[in-house]
């Protein structure tokens, strides 16, 4: 058998059920891999004792014949999820020392399904970033390496992507507000799905932009994404926006049969200056789906160009409201005050010290677009454009399109620090292909389909109809089978 930490969820599950391996053995293999991978800075709070305790309990359940989907499988948890008794600080200095007294619904569901949490994973501060460089823990590093440079694993779920790609865990949780699952998945040769808005409960996940945030799995294969998403999804009374719909057995829907499916190719996703490699990758992906029996159809999503500017009004606006709670009163950091400082000085100093630059920038942009005199010009305008962006997709689906194929990212992973001097807007452009479906609430999955000329992974993205993740994952499965991507990063860490 291969090293246990290198198994997929499906392989490990089957081995556990057969009794070929124990959860304790799987967990110990991952813990050893994690301890040897500090150079990746993926796990930022390790919980080995808790993991072994849960692994032992999972082994008992397996012995008793009670083996839910995720039973005994070791996973990593993005730091954005509140986990009872374990530090949860959204990679922010302002939540230094915060230890929740409660568990997020999604992490609780995974725990109830028997999953073993190995620790908390690095990310961009409050999920605001596309390179994992805004984290208070420092940069997470991509296990893929082609020269002396250290590359970004993407963001915001950069630690999750790095950990899965480096086989530090069998799978990990992520969250996606504008591409934070799909872009890091594409940068690391892993699979990531952002489900339909409302499919997973947001309760207990530290909020960035509530109308866009969704939890999702980051895995080694599409099959694993199906298994883990089923365990994470479902209605929750504690999140009024979670959908009260049955959660299907997504794995059972992976037949690989996509004959007769209509795949839309949006012409607006070919911006000027798009690299030839990405174009080729995209054309090859379409050819693979066609060879599998799908019909390829060019479609138009005319408002695509306006998705990113609309996002950079709506997301900061919601963030400025959500992050108002970090005031130095109830949890986290409080600034040391000077004699005579009142409560306003406490708020202002606490937030100046606790938040990083990108978070401050977005809070203030959000404050501005919501302020008197600008609310209509910016915020309401962006919400109207959002309606139009969603309508573009509805029109395509109404015309018979089953899924839309697009690139996941404009480039492969770039070097850490290379964008430091860039305009903030340049970093935002990383999300150009992913952000549209957050605005429309749609599910999207990134699948690795090839390597670029430098030897770095590239991914394609499939976008599906609302609440039809099963069908979407099946199309992704067909693409995965056809692409046959099996490359792994060579171990240097």
């Amino acid at each position, binding site marked *: 058998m291969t090293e246990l930490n290198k198994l997929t969820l499906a392989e490990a599950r089957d081995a556990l059920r057969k009794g070929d391996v124990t959860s304790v053995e799987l967990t110990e293999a991952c813990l050893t891999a994690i301890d040897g991978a500090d150079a990746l800075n993926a796990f930022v709070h390790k919980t080995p004792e808790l993991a072994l305790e849960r692994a032992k309990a999972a082994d008992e359940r397996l012995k008793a014949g009670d083996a839910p989907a995720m039973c005994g499988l070791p996973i990593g948890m993005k730091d954005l999820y509140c986990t009872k008794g374990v530090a949860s600080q959204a990679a922010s200095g302002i939540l230094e020392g*915060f230890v*929740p*007294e409660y568990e997020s619904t999604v992490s609780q569901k995974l725990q109830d399904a028997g999953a073993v949490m190995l620790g908390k994973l690095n990310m961009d501060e409050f999920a605001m970033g596309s390179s994992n460089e805004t984290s208070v823990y420092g940069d997470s590093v991509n296990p893929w390496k082609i020269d002396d440079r250290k590359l970004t694993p993407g963001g915001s779920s950069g630690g999750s992507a790095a950990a899965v790609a480096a086989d530090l865990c069998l799978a990990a949780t992520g969250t996606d507000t504008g591409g934070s699952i799909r872009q890091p998945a594409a940068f690391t040769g892993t699979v990531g799905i952002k489900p*339909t*808005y*409302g499919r997973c409960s947001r309760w207990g996940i530290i909020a960035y932009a509530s*109308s866009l945030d969704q939890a999702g799995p980051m895995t080694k294969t599409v099959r694993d994404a199906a298994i883990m998403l089923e365990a994470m999804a479902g209605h929750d*009374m504690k999140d*009024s*926006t979670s*959908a*009260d719909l049955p959660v299907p057995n997504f794995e059972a829907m992976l037949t690989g049969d996509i004959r007769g499916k209509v795949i839309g190719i949006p012409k607006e996703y070919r911006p000027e200056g798009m690299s030839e490699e990405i174009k080729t990758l995209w054309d090859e992906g379409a050819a693979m789906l066609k060879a599998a029996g799908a019909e390829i159809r060019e479609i138009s999503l005319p*408002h695509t160009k*306006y998705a*990113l*500017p*609309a996002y*950079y*009004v709506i997301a900061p606006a919601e963030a*400025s409201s959500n992050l*108002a709670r970090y*005031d130095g*009163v*109830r*949890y986290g*950091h*409080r600034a040391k*005050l000077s004699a005579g400082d*009142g*409560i306003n*000085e*406490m708020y*202002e*100093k606490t*937030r*100046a010290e606790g*938040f990083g630059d990108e978070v*401050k*920038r977005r809070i*203030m*942009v959000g*404050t*501005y677009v919501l*302020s008197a005199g600008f609310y209509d010009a*910016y915020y309401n*305008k*962006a*919400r*109207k*454009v*959002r*309606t*139009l962006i*969603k309508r573009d997709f509805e029109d395509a689906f109404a015309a018979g399109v089953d899924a839309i194929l697009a690139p996941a990212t404009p480039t492969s992973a770039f070097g850490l620090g290379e964008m430091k001097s860039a*305009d*903030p*807007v340049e970093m935002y452009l990383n999300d150009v292909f992913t952000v549209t479906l957050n*605005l429309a*609430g749609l599910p999207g999955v990134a699948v690795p389909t090839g390597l670029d000329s430098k030897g770095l992974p590239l991914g394609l993205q499939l976008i599906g109809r*609302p609440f039809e993740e099963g069908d979407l994952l099946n199309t992704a499965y067909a693409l995965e089978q056809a692409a046959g991507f099996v490359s792994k990063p060579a171990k240097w860490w």
Partner: protein
Amino acid sequence: MSIDTGTAAKVAKLARIKVEDDQLPALAEEFNRILGFIEQLGEVDVEGVEPMTSVTPQRLKRREDVVTDGSYQDKVLSNAPDAREGFFAVPKVVE
């Protein structure tokens, strides 16, 4: 629309984030670049379009208006930077 240092200072104040005076010009410059990017939205014809309030058509669920949870004073206060006698403590607010 161009943001000057005075507007940047006002926004920082509204957001309750202390920004030193010498940082204000750089902040105003960043705002201008971001808002310049956002200005593209002006090109879109939104005549007669409703602003989105909910991305899924679902009605929000209702429940009985009763207490379902609570009595966790210790847990609520456990992460407070300063808690005394069952309360959050803050600098003096009224003279």
